[in-house]
């Protein structure tokens, strides 16, 4: 904020104006931070129960201590908590590894397939583990699992869809355009309601997916359409001459896509991809409308316990911090990746 750069021609007047603006911004930030610190630390209650917290002005830390378990894991059985914890650690590590270009390759794709299957298996149990009904899943692992599963499905599907939209085969192109436009013209909550209420009717008798699986399938299909449009944006920046040159060299379509088109196209749309991924992480909170206890909904439900009634600020700020950490991490990563790929 302080490190403004002024063009040399702006002169002293602009310099002073910039300085004043900077100072004002700093003062404003400090004021907000002071209020926040006052609420979070100085006036806060660190031990006691609801009555102690009510009597004080500041934040109620004992509420967070008591509700941490519920906000993060919702109804998951307490004696099985290592499983969702393992899922969180596993998925975050998988994302961390995927973030480094040096690991990009077929091995990583296999790793994602295996990792997601293991995460779903670990959450639901069976094979020696106590089965846990999907109804009891909730909190951070559900938010992350849905996000990762949907991105894991949507990313390859979106590339195929974007290629189909550019294809010379008319039928394929029309189908792809139809799919993308229908999905993009439908609000996500309508998609969720469809998953919740209509989808079960379309399945054969006896085939019943649980609510979270149905929602995951439908949201993955939904985001595939958005992602496909971002990928298409990248594809359109590649001059047709490149494809023609590849064809002239006798390179087949799929190898051409893999070696020539995609590496350049995807690199151009990294900001768009990350932006969409972040938007999607935040959109998982819409699952609350079909009664899934994702992170945000679990925090909201935590404030309804008569023993700890109504500490909305604490609950919402806590999950806001988690969402912020994930999203800010994502956007910094995208900046770093762009710079690195531009260099390489």
């Amino acid at each position, binding site marked *: 904020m302080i490190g403004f750069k002024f063009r040399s021609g702006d002169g002293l007047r602009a310099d002073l104006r910039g300085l004043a603006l900077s100072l004002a911004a700093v003062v404003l930030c400090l004021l907000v931070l002071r209020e926040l610190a006052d609420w979070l630390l100085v006036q806060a209650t660190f031990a006691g129960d609801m009555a102690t917290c*009510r009597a004080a002005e500041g934040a109620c830390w004992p509420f967070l201590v*008591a*509700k941490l*378990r*519920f906000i993060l*894991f*919702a*109804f*998951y*059985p*307490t004696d099985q908590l290592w499983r969702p914890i393992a899922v969180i650690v596993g998925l975050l590590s998988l994302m961390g590894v995927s973030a480094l270009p040096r690991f990009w390759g077929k091995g990583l794709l296999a790793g994602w397939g295996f990792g997601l299957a293991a995460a779903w298996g670990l959450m639901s149990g069976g094979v020696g583990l106590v089965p846990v*009904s999907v*109804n*009891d899943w909730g909190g951070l692992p559900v938010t992350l699992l849905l996000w990762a599963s949907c991105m894991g499905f949507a990313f390859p599907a979106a590339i195929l869809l974007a290629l189909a939209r550019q294809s010379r085969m008319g039928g394929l192109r029309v189908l792809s355009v139809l799919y993308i436009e229908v999905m993009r013209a439908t*609000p*996500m*909550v*309508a998609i969720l*309601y*469809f998953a*919740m*209420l*209509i989808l*079960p*009717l379309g399945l054969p008798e006896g085939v019943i997916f649980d*609510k979270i699986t149905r929602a995951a399938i439908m949201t993955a299909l939904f985001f595939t359409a*958005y992602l496909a449009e971002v990928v298409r944006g990248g594809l359109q920046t590649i001059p047709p001459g490149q494809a023609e040159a590849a064809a002239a060299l006798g390179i087949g379509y799929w190898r051409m896509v893999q070696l020539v088109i995609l590496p350049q196209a995807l690199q151009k749309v990294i900001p768009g991809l990350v932006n*969409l991924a972040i*938007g999607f992480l*935040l*959109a998982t*909170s*819409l699952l*609350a*409308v*079909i*009664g899934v*206890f994702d992170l945000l909904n679990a925090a*909201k*439900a*935590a*404030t*309804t*316990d*008569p*023993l*700890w*009634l*109504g500490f*909305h600020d604490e609950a*919402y700020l806590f999950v806001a911090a988690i969402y912020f950490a994930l999203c800010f991490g994502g956007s910094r990563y995208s900046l770093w990746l762009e710079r690195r790929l531009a260099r390489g």
Partner: protein
Amino acid sequence: MSTLQTFRNAARTLAAAAAVAAAVLPTFASAGPTLDRIKERGVIKVGVGTTPGFFAPDSAGKWQGFFIDYGRALSIAVFGSPDKVEFTSSSPQQRLPALQAGEFDVLLSGVTVTITRAFKLGFHFGPTIFYDGQAILARKDLGVKSASELDGATIGVQSGTTGELNIADFFRKTGKAFSPVTIEDTSEFLAALESGRVDAITQDSSDLVGKLQQLKKPDDYVLLPERLSKEPLAPAIVAGDDRWLEIVNWTVYATIQAEEWGITSKNVDTFLTSQDPAIQRFLGVDPSLAQDIGLDPKWAYNIIKTVGNYGEIYERNLAPLGWERGYNQLWTKGGLLYAPPFR
């Protein structure tokens, strides 16, 4: 794409989606008797909501509350154990379509009994277990003792509910002026009241009592005595399964009858030696009654022993929030709770 915008668009289509689902679903409703399905599955699926005192998760991630205890009572009646029940939270817009789609065996989410729901939408209702009604929570410094004295007040109402219509009707009747402010969310209601943006808020009394507890200075506010609407809250099931309905009915009646007889979870064992034939049938000492229902002869005993009678359930869940019994009192004590005879 902005999440907020998606949400707004969605809110508009949401009502339409629910209506479509409600119209399409009845033709697909399962024909099999609910009880057989439940026994085969080994668990009762219950739809609930989230309102302090009625249904809320505790710190260990277990559901607690007034309606939750009735879910446990049903589980005891059918399986003899309070844990063979799966609670799923469901929003007011989707709970009835979800019940119809077979997601739940019974809704214990505070559904108001109405004639439309009974005939047009095809639901059956058990006995009312909580008599609720729309009420007004006002600032004390307005100096009003009753809602009819409110004039020119700014009143917060929840958007998209019948509460908006009820309050408008009420003020049309009293002939006084008021200005409504629509509010979306629990925490917003509290903020609006505390910041003075509204003079009063109106919601069902079951919601308001929980809110009163959350205000920084609860003593500065008063719950006005009027009830602007009748909201009898009852268990709901899909129409067409009489036997399941009777099990729901008599599970509720058992808790009411037990309170009338003074049978509690603590003293229920002393009643096992009672000479009263009605009590003997009730507690399964005389098993003739249970044979007809097809339940364990000790079903009512088990319910009372584990979750207690109506009064105990009420005291445990709602009294800590400052609830008084009001209409939810035995008929012998001036309330509306009345169980048909166990004979």
